[in-house]
């Protein structure tokens, strides 16, 4: 019953989506208020029906209804409840349903909170949102139906891939999708603006909160994915330049550029055409990412050719939306009036610099990800593009971006004073240079890149601080004035400074962990002690410990620092009988921002066991920085100007008028 209910609800959502795809546009053309209003109800009901569909699938999983194919293939009756729940999206079909759930959620949010939008714009946005939704409802219903039944109900499921039986699956994909799919709103706004042929600063003000929301979630989603990989892979890598990761990085880079260009458009009515293009590109990259990971094209071009139904369907969606939107852009963009002139050295100029480098960095990732696929498809030659390529090409672009970052917020609009700003940044530059020298000296001149990176990160952090100091007048003005100025400072200014220091914090973490990390890979016998970076690790022995749906071999280790016991580390290996697979669970011990990381290898015949012990200095800063960036974004999102235009709460009418 449940699967049929879910299936039916999804079909109803499609029907509503089809109505919403057409009705509001006709309404906007014929000035029919009823048709325009219809979109509000259909958007809310679409979300309700997709939510019912999703809930039905959740119930199938939680109750272990193995008559449903996807439940049979991805669940097991002995799994802990949380994993029964998360395995809903631990597979292709379910994750696509999560995708459309979030898509319809955003549609409903626009319907619900878009009260301050002009009626025609809102009608168009909701209609376009519905085009996307319909394409993906059809994709699910025709090629990836999660509700299909088996003719005979099996007794037991095949279990969720043990690697996915982790809390990371509960957090990472939903956050990532909220980001990915959230950019659809910016896309719909862009297409609506092109169709209407009207675009102004107010447009940017409406789009910015949605873009910022999506960006916040995507930032957090990528960071959480990175941390998940870090603690699960068994050797503490946090970024691999894997195509699947790149698929999420591409929209992040384009989205970051969009955030910045939208500021110029909102404040100065300039860069309009470019901002529209970026909005289209950002969501297009989300779609390309979905295509890359969903079609199987990454595994091999041949795997894609062997079972092309899904891949071809997504490819069709891709061509339709990206091609269609770019064609519309090409035909309408020349008609858009450019406004807001500015000198090359100005806040606008700095934001253009930001956009140039971010989009080039984005292009580097796109080329590096797609080139091997294209080359193999065209000439049959196989090449690999991995981390060393991206470090070499992406790295310098990001260094340039970081170097320019503190200048942007300090430059004036229209015409800035580069020399003046450089003078105001003098202390940041000085601290950066001192840091380079100190690190270089302490390190004994082993590498040039690491001291430079540390200096750059500190320079960006201090630069962000200087921006705040200048604006609040701290150390220059009386404290009361400072307090008043700090309170009067727009939250977006705080957000900028915090987000900029966030990326510097992440950079610091990456450099420290990559440069000064140490490791020991040895076989240890019970009671034997190994030392690493001032820590002593004693192997106490191996024990068997049963889990709910696995059996684990747990190694017990005592960690000492200067002779004092600071804790016990228990890395383990879990064997899952249902799939005959095993996973490695590393043990982590956090010391300040640094971490000790221990994972268990194979046991040998002589009673020893292989272990890998890592000391990762400052590694936590990588993810702390991402969270700081997210907080900066959230603060910026709460800025007053993004709420301007929203209806103000009416004056309390219960108050008696003054006599």
């Amino acid at each position, binding site marked *: 019953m449940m699967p049929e209910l879910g299936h039916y609800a999804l079909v109803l959502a499609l029907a509503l989506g089809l109505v919403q795809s057409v009705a509001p546009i006709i309404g906007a053309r014929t000035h029919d208020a009823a048709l325009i209003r219809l979109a509000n109800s259909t958007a809310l009901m679409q979300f309700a029906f997709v939510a019912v569909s999703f809930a039905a699938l959740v119930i199938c999983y939680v109750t272990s209804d193995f008559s449903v194919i996807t439940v049979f293939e991805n669940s097991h009756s002995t799994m802990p409840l949380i994993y029964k729940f998360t395995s809903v999206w*631990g597979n*292709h079909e379910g*994750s696509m349903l999560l995708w459309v759930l979030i898509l319809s959620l955003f549609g409903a949010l626009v319907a619900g909170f878009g009260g301050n939008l002009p009626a025609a714009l809102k009608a168009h946005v909701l209609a376009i949102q519905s085009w996307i939704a319909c394409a993906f409802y059809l994709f699910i219903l025709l090629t990836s139906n999660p509700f299909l039944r088996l003719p005979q109900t099996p007794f037991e499921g095949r279990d969720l*891939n*043990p*690697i*996915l039986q982790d809390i*990371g*699956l509960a957090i*990472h*994909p939903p956050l*990532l999708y909220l980001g990915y799919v959230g950019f659809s709103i910016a896309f719909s706004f862009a297409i609506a603006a092109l169709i209407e042929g009207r675009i102004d600063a107010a447009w940017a003000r409406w789009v910015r909160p949605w873009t910022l929301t999506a960006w916040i979630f995507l930032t957090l989603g990528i960071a959480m*994915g990175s941390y*998940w*990989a870090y603690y*699960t*892979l*068994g050797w503490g890598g946090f970024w*691999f*330049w*894997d*195509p*699947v*990761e790149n698929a*999420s990085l591409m929209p992040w880079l384009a989205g970051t550029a969009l955030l910045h260009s939208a500021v110029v458009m909102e404040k100065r009515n300039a860069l309009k055409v470019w901002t529209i293009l970026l909005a289209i590109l950002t969501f297009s990259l989300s779609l390309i990412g979905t295509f890359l*990971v*969903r079609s199987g094209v*990454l595994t091999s071009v041949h795997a894609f050719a062997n079972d092309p139904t899904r891949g071809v369907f997504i490819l069709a969606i891709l061509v339709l939306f990206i091609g269609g939107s770019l064609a519309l852009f090409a035909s309408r963009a020349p008609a858009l009036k450019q406004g807001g002139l500015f000198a090359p050295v100005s806040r606008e100029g700095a934001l*253009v610099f930001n956009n*140039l*480098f971010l*989009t*080039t960095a984005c*292009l580097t990732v796109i*080329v*590096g990800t797609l*080139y091997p696929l294209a*080359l193999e498809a065209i000439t049959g030659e*196989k*090449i*690999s*593009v*991995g981390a*060393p*390529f991206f470090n070499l*090409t992406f790295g310098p*672009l990001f260094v340039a971006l970081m170097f320019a970052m503190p200048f942007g917020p300090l430059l004036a609009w229209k015409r800035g004073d580069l020399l003046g700003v450089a003078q105001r940044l003098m202390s940041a530059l000085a601290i950066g240079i001192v840091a380079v020298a100190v690190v270089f000296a302490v390190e004994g001149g082993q590498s040039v890149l690491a001291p430079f990176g540390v200096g750059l990160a500190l320079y960006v952090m201090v630069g962000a601080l200087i921006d705040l100091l200048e604006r609040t007048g701290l150390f220059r003005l009386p404290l009361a004035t400072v307090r008043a100025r700090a309170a009067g400072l727009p939250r977006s200014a705080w957000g900028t400074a915090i987000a900029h220091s966030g990326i510097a914090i992440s950079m610091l973490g990456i450099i420290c962990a990559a440069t000064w990390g140490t490791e020991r*890979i*040895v*076989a240890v016998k019970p009671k034997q002690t190994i030392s690493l970076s001032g820590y002593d690790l004693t192997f106490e022995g191996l024990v068997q410990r049963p889990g709910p749906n696995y059996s684990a071999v747990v190694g017990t280790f005592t960690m000492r620092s200067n002779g004092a016991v600071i804790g016990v580390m228990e890395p383990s*290996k879990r064997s899952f009988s249902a*799939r*005959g*697979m*095993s*996973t490695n669970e590393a043990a982590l011990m956090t010391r300040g921002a640094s971490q000790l990381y221990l994972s268990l*290898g*194979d046991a040998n015949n002589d009673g020893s066991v*292989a272990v*890998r012990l890592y000391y990762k200095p400052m590694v936590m800063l990588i993810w702390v920085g991402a969270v700081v960036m997210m907080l900066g974004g959230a603060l910026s999102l709460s800025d007053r100007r993004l709420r301007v235009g929203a209806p103000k709460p009416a004056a309390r009418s219960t108050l008696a008028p003054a006599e």
Partner: protein
Amino acid sequence: MRRVVWVGFLFALLTSGAALAVQPDEILKDAALEARARDLSRELRCMVCQNQSIDDSEAPLARDLRILVRERLTQGDSNQQVLDFLVARYGEFVLLKPRLEWHTLLLWGLPPMALVAGIIALLMMMRRSSAVRMEPAALSPEEQRRLSTLVESGTPDH
């Protein structure tokens, strides 16, 4: 796991052997040589894996390659010789950083070309906009009319 759900199953294929990457018995006694081996390992692809270097990979093939790299190094090969040897044996697919050749020209060339093209486009746009700035646009008839009423009446037309 490899960060996102849908590659999990691929990764699972690779981890079913469940041995970790570099093993204790592989490590060379000579620390300098071992460091070179690790550096090289990070540039070499485990060909049966999805975009993993042999330094990270747990596949048996990656282990064989790691041992091979160390053998060549102990025999006195330079880093370049080791890479050449592996490319001759397994093809260019083994390199995670493709060499600059005609068929990778676009791969290496496109990003810097885009940057340069972007800068040129910006410069051209700037020149054009500064040319526009020289001569302010003439008033439209509507604006002209409003201006004259303003001048005549002497009050803003609210």
